[in-house]
């Protein structure tokens, strides 16, 4: 069941073509049905999960690698699954109009459902390897979606940046997963959980943290890897809504939340997350004030919100983890709405410049309502869901030991800036006088404005009646993240206290700034001065440098000269073997076991040495070939001396053939020339002598070992009994190892055909004489 649910998206994506040809124009609606159905399914599971159970499905995939598809539906994964399918439904629905008539509509839906399926896989996988695979699949599908407008070079560049950052992060994450499993002996997360203590005390705990953090930070756009997210806004707005605010970027948060009960609770975990999350949220919040592009504002405020989540996971107290659960939901609801609204404005007016857009409420009332709700929820006005999450957040930081004040100050500051950014995105375009040039703006289609309005309804509904989600959704999420079963409660009214005061202060200061601060091109331009030292520039510089280095390295090593490859391989071999011999080599030759040297043998050896040297140094080709022939015949004599008549005969015939053929072919070639310089020749000679020495020493070492004759003995003993042959060599060839011989004759045939075709084949017919 669950397998089908997760894979249905992949299935749809793979079948995009056939579906497209069957349903034609109705294709988007067919695809939209998918997330809707999945959403209904997951809603039906709320009851089961909220009672504290978790559902598990297991499918064997690659058991030998410990890679099973184990899907576990618990509180945390259910929340994410609901977001993925719920917001997915809205986005799929919205896009039917937004991309109407686009040439690659089918492709878009194919990518989108692939992404949805990968995302579901990430949040539902219990097996960490499977999680990694789905994790990378989200990066890949988001690459296609960001680069959807593939004719735009900027779009392609952004897609590539996003892919390289998140993909690299994923690879690092894999390192962390493998380390984890090497300690725990399993890839199953639920089994690892029971080994928390051994993992925490292990020496590689620190590395696991680093790897998991890098994986999460790249995915969730944390400082200093945040820059791919604003770039990713090149994607069509529904994609930004879906991937870059509601789901994909939250995968990193999801991973951290999932890992909290396993890896969390240590100072290293808490402090790193607090610092990185803190920097990200403040940095990005300030940045968002300087943008004029609506999507730019939203991108930075999203980064900031992700920073808040990381920060809260870092704070790690019960309240903070509760705030994580609620804020994930809150943020998804209002940020997706804001993105969709931006998309509508962009679609209807063709502009996203916040300093130009005014008074649109006169032409698009429902959109304006959705915008107001989203902005107010983001600001955290009472009676909106944002208020609840903000209260709990403040409470969590305020009560945090000594540095509570500092943390609270940071989060209040962030919240103030985010309020301003939210107002700019959700309120500013709709208020004021409608400028002349926007008078002609048409009323948007309901397909466009219904989704953001629905999200707004959610924000209000859950904000007014928190009981709706308290036990059903948030409680199990909290239980999963914290690993505790403390009961939680969400209340609208906490009484008059410092937190409430801070909350009111946030609203007042934020609103005041909103009325005073006007984003403009000039202010935006000023921020660009800092680009030189931004992480993006530094990382891109690194990438370019790496590319250059790779080029230089390749040119140096892969230079296209075969002999240089041979040279470096053998030089390396000589060095390591030489090192081994340097370490100590034992050659004890038992002179008694060796055969005697007879005068005839001495003559043959002398002859051989002379002819080898002659073959090498001779300048005449003919002389070289003749010397080579002598080497072969001397070889043949050795075989004859030492009881190998078969070999001697074969070597003799082959040698005759080779020398004659060589003569035939090379008769008319010019004299040997010396091409290389003296220095190179000396270098080669030294290496060759060393190599020869190495082989000689190795051979002597072999004599150390007793020779293994079991196989030969079997062959020899049974040669006549089983194979009715007396010549054991021949029996081996045609009987024992007949299959090998069969293949060897085939090789010979191939060589003959090669020779034949090499000569007869005319490479260039036009040159035929």
């Amino acid at each position, binding site marked *: 069941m669950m397998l089908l649910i997760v894979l249905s998206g992949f299935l749809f994506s793979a079948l995009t073509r056939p579906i497209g040809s069957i349903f034609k124009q109705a294709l988007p609606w067919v695809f939209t049905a998918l997330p809707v159905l999945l959403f209904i399914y997951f809603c039906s599971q709320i009851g089961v999960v909220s009672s504290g159970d978790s559902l598990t499905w297991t499918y064997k995939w690659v058991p030998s690698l410990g890679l099973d598809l184990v899907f576990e539906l618990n509180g945390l994964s259910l929340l994410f699954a609901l977001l993925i399918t719920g917001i997915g439904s809205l986005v799929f629905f919205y896009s039917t109009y937004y991309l109407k008539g686009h040439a690659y509509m089918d492709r878009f839906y194919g990518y989108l459902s692939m992404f949805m399926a990968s995302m579901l896989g990430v949040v539902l996988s219990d097996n960490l390897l499977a999680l990694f695979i789905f994790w990378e699949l989200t990066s890949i599908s988001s690459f296609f979606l960001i680069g959807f407008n593939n004719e735009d070079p900027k779009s392609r560049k952004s897609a590539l940046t996003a892919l390289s950052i998140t993909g690299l992060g994923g690879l690092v994450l894999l390192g962390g997963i493998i380390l984890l499993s090497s300690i725990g002996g399993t890839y199953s997360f639920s089994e690892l959980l029971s080994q928390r203590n051994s993992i925490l005390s292990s020496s590689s705990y620190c590395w696991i943290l680093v790897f998991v953090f890098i994986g999460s930070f790249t995915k969730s756009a944390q400082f200093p890897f945040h820059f791919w997210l604003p770039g990713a806004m090149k994607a069509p707005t529904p994609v930004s809504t879906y991937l870059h605010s509601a789901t994909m970027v939250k995968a990193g948060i999801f991973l951290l939340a999932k890992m909290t009960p396993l890896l969390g609770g240590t100072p290293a975990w808490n402090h790193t997350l607090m610092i990185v999350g803190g920097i990200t949220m403040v940095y990005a919040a300030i940045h968002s004030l300087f943008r004029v592009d609506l999507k730019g504002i939203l991108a930075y405020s999203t980064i900031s919100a992700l920073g808040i989540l990381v920060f809260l996971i870092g704070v790690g107290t019960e309240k903070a983890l509760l705030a994580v659960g609620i804020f994930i939901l809150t943020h998804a609801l209002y940020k997706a709405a804001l993105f969709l609204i931006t998309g509508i404005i962009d679609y209807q007016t063709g502009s996203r410049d916040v300093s130009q857009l005014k008074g649109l409420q006169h032409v698009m009332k429902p959109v304006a309502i959705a915008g107001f709700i989203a902005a107010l929820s983001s600001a955290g006005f009472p009676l909106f869901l944002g208020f609840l999450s903000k209260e709990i957040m403040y409470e969590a930081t305020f009560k945090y030991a000594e540095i509570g004040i500092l943390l609270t100050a940071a989060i209040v500051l962030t919240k103030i800036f985010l309020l301003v950014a939210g107002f700019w995105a959700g309120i500013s375009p709709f208020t004021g006088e409608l400028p002349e040039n926007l008078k002609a703006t048409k009323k948007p289609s309901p397909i466009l404005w219904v989704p953001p309005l629905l999200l707004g309804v959610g924000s209000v509904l859950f904000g007014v009646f928190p009981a709706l989600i308290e036990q059903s959704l948030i409680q199990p999420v909290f239980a999963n993240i914290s690993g505790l079963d403390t009961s939680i409660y969400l209340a609208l009214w906490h009484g008059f206290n410092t937190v409430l005061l801070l909350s009111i202060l946030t609203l007042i200061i934020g609103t005041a700034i909103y009325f005073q601060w006007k984003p403009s091109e000039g202010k935006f331009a000023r921020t660009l001065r800092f680009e030189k030292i931004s992480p993006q520039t530094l990382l891109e510089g690194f990438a370019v440098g790496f590319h250059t280095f790779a080029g230089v390295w390749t040119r140096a090593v892969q230079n296209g000269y075969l002999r240089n490859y041979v040279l470096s391989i053998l030089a390396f071999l000589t060095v390591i073997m030489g090192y081994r011999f340097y370490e100590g080599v034992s050659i004890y030759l038992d002179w008694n076991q060796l055969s005697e040297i007879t005068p005839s043998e001495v003559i043959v050896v002398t002859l051989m040495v002379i002819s080898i040297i002659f073959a090498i140094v001779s300048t005449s080709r003919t002389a070289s070939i003749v010397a080579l022939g002598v080497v072969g015949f001397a070889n043949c004599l050795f075989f004859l001396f030492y009881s190998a008549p078969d070999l001697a005969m074969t070597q003799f015939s082959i040698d005759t053939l080779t020398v004659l053929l060589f003569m035939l*072919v090379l008769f008319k070639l010019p004299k040997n020339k010396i091409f290389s310089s003296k220095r190179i020749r000396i270098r080669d000679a030294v290496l060759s002598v060393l190599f020869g020495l190495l082989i000689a020493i190795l051979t002597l070492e072999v004599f150390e070992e007793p020779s293994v004759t079991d196989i030969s003995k079997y062959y020899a003993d049974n040669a006549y009994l089983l194979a009715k042959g007396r010549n054991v060599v021949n029996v081996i060839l045609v009987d024992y190892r007949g299959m090998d011989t069969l293949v060897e*004759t085939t090789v010979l045939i191939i060589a003959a055909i090669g020779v034949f075709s090499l000569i007869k084949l005319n490479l260039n017919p036009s040159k035929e004489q």
Partner: protein
Amino acid sequence: MKSLIFRTASIYLLPLLLLFSIFILLRGHYLPGGGFVGGLMAGVAFLIHSFAFGLKETRNIIKINPGFLMPIGLTICVLAALAPWIVSLPLMTGLWFEEPFKFVGMVGSALFFDIGVYLVVVGSTLIIMFTIADTV
């Protein structure tokens, strides 16, 4: 290579060497020799002949294209390997006639296999030789 002695010698040398190569092939199972050596011997025999009389003459003597020898030889090898299958024995099991033949001795599937090797080697050698000689 136009020496009269060499030519005259070659005329007698070719059949002698060919016979010798077949002799080597057949005795291979009992004494040094076999398909590989025999095939190469035959190759050398033809090469010597072509040195004396030129390639054209050698080709005329062989008549068939040596290229055909290779597939024929390979087929014989494969058949010899498959033969035990028919009597439901594992592949490459040696099958033997009960009684020895005249001149040849015991005949079995291994001998046919060796003949196949012989033909392949002769074929490849000749093909390589002729092709190379053609280019000179």
